[in-house]
């Protein structure tokens, strides 16, 4: 049978795919010109992109960087290109960029908001990226402190700080370099002592940040933090004597009494006895992009936990809790943010007696937090609604109590489902911080008006907005990319 010639007995050698299917040409054919309609669309899109870039790129790059006024800009443009049309005057950014970033914050204290931002990044790293090792996180932290100490004015105390942080940085850094992650994991498995959890610093940060930004003595921050300590102690030890619900109520009441009645006297007393502190900065001096970040971070940081509580409260069986939550959410969502800001800046002024000094930035922070918390609650409720009933029943059948079930089973899944919505709300509230310019705060938009009121820069327009758009794009785009990273990381489906 071996002479049957129509059955091939040996394999043909592999051949290269045809030239039109691989390489650049293949990619073009597949992705851009796969049919004649797609080809036309591709050409039209390329033309549209060219059209936009041809207008923008010369404007951005054929521009004037060094000039002290718009008139000077125009003279330079006319001398260089023969016309002023289509060229940007970045001189205004060159002269005012520090003001656009920091507002009227005292120049010699710029280090403080910068340090706050760096520490913020260090503090949220363990929350955002759980694959970063504790060693890495502590290394970043001590490095930040070391750099701060180096930049401070020298004194004996500062030299001790420098030496201490330099030592810590070197020790942890040396370990990081010489000891691989796998080896370290093995050591820990064999009982080596781990570094403390970096979330410690994350918990301290909310009290450290206002002190760094506003300055003054350190006692108000410590006293405020002490309220949480009181609440925790009551919770920890009260259970032996009271029912769980009662303990919780007493804990909250004790903390609130401390904050409202006692902490003011204690902190002012301590401040007069031991005035440890740094130069105070008035809220009026806050401004620029720094204000947007400050408001955005506070609103984002506070609205997520409040939103979770509100979402749970809305689904609660306790009628009073439920109605309070529904009322809050529906009222705040039913009112435009700008109205809330006017309430913060104007209405409270009328209600509070004359001479009351209730910090305007604090008022705005509270309103923005409420606003985003109401939206957050609805986003998270959507996530809760997406969970099948079986998850709740499964939690019950394991004998978990309400909070355990929420913490271990419901919330991890509900939050994961809601990530795109949550991040959208974050980005939205961050951009909404620019609305404070309407109530006379000098955020970055408000500053454009002040800069244009300078006779040198009156008449300048697009350059300022382009710069602001650039700043906002960086932050919002990072948030958006992070949410996509998080969704990939938490992906448990099989698709």
């Amino acid at each position, binding site marked *: 049978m071996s002479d049957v010639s129509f059955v091939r007995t040996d394999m043909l050698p592999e051949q290269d795919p045809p030239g039109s299917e691989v390489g650049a040409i293949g990619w073009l054919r597949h992705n851009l010109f796969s049919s004649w309609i797609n080809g036309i669309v591709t050409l039209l899109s390329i033309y549209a992109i060219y059209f936009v870039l041809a207008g923008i790129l010369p404007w951005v790059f054929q521009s004037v960087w060094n000039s002290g006024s*718009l*008139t000077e800009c*125009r003279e330079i443009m006319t001398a260089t290109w023969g016309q*002023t049309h289509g060229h940007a005057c970045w001189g205004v950014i060159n*002269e*005012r960029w*520090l*003001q656009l970033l920091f*507002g*009227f914050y005292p*120049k010699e204290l710029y280090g403080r908001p910068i340090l706050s931002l760096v520490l913020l990044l260090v503090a949220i790293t363990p929350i955002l990226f759980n694959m970063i090792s504790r060693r890495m996180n502590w290394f970043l932290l001590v490095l930040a402190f070391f750099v701060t100490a180096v930049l401070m004015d020298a004194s004996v105390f500062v030299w001790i700080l420098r030496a201490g942080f330099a030592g810590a940085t070197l020790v942890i850094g040396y370990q990081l370099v010489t000891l691989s992650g796998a080896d370290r994991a093995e050591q820990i498995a064999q009982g080596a002592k781990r570094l403390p959890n970096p979330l410690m610093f994350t918990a301290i940060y*909310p*009290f450290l*940040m*206002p002190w760094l930004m506003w300055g003054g003595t350190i006692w*108000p*921050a410590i006293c*405020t933090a002490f*309220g949480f300590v009181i609440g925790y102690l009551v919770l920890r030890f009260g259970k032996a004597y009271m029912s769980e619900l009662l303990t919780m109520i007493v804990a909250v009441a004790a903390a609130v009494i401390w*904050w*409202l*009645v006692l*902490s*003011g006297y204690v*902190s002012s007393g301590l401040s007069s006895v031991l005035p440890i502190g740094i130069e105070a900065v*008035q809220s*009026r*001096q806050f401004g620029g992009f720094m204000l947007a970040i400050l408001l955005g971070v506070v609103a984002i940081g506070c609205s997520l936990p409040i939103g979770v509580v509100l979402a749970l409260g809305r689904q609660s069986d306790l009628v009073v809790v439920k109605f309070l939550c529904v009322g809050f959410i529906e009222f705040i969502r039913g009112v435009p943010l700008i109205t809330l800001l*006017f309430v913060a*800046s*104007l209405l409270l*002024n*009328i209600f*509070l*007696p*004359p*001479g*009351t*000094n*209730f*910090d305007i930035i*604090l008022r705005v922070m509270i309103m923005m937090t409420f606003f985003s918390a109401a939206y957050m609650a609805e986003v998270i409720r959507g996530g809760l609604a997406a969970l099948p009933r079986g998850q709740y029943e499964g939690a019950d059948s394991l004998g978990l109590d309400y909070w355990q079930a929420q913490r271990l089973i419901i919330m991890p899944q509900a939050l994961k489902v809601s990530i795109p919505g949550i991040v959208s709300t974050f980005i939205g509230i961050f951009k909404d911080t620019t609305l404070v*310019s*309407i*109530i*006379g*705060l*000098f955020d970055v938009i*408000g500053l*454009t*008006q*002040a*800069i*244009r*009121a*300078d*006779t040198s820069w*009156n*008449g300048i*327009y697009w350059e300022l907005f382009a710069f602001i758009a650039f700043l906002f794009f960086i932050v919002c785009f990072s948030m958006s990319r992070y949410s996509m990273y998080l969704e990939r990381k938490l992906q448990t489906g099989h698709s």
Partner: protein
Amino acid sequence: MKKTVLLGALTVAGLAAGAAAAGTLDDVKARGTLNCGVTTGLVGFAAPDADGVWGGFDVSICRAVAAAVLGDSTAVEFVPTTGKTRFTALASGEIDMLARNTTWTFSRDVDLKFTFVGINYYDGQGFMVPKDLGVSSATELDGATVCIQTGTTTELNLADFFRSNNISYEPVPIETNAEGQQQYLAGACDVYTTDASGLAATRATFEAPGDHVLLPEIISKEPLGPLVRHGDNEWGDVVRWTLNALVTAEELGVTSANIGEMSAGTNNPEINRLLGTEGTLGAMLGLDAEWAKNAIMSGGNYGEIFAKNIGEETPIGLARGLNAQWTNGGLIYSPPFR
């Protein structure tokens, strides 16, 4: 983290209710700074420079009052206010005085319960048109599109003017002056209307100012001046007579350059009374004898302030016009220091 502020607010609220009668002058002296409401930015009138230091025509009034009361023209906390927040800020006591190119009108004085202490700039609403429109009078503007800031008195004045002249127009609403500039230059409207000082400042920023003309008609009276709350006459007197001192100084030829030698004593008794070498005018106001001298030294007399911030030497280039001294045919006139 600052919940203590809540407590602070309540405590202060209790204290303030008792202290409210103490008077603004004492409050300012006790505080050591003057809280002065200004605009969030208006060319020539109020603007912060790159270092955050405020300057401008209205700002100079704040500085003069601070110098008169506290002896230090830098002891001012400038509170930027918008058109919507300015009156609440003053009424609630957040600011001690408002110097924010605010028009003195009947309802603001009577109904909103403020006291205008004087007029530091006589303004009026005008029109700007491109030269090639070929218009030489506002009465020829029948059917024109007009860029107009919404929610201001200029909007109402415009409607009145066109109705009384039996001509029609099409409004193009804008929010801010900067937006108005862009719209006008882009040709979205034929005419731009706002206060004449604003028009002059806007035209000065154009690439070709000569291509645009200001029409001769001024269709409204806009007397701009500083104001304080009703009911605190001592404080109102301090602000009023500080402004008058600047005006009188110009009339009498007292400038920031020659004030040193003048305050050594002159033959003119009114100068001597003004500068505190004769009489007790300062003590009557509850201030020290050199209050007016300090006010004048903070930025010069009225004429110097005008020339430095908005006068013809500046890019804004406003002529004195109505704002010349009464001796030169203008309306700037101060009651005598006697």
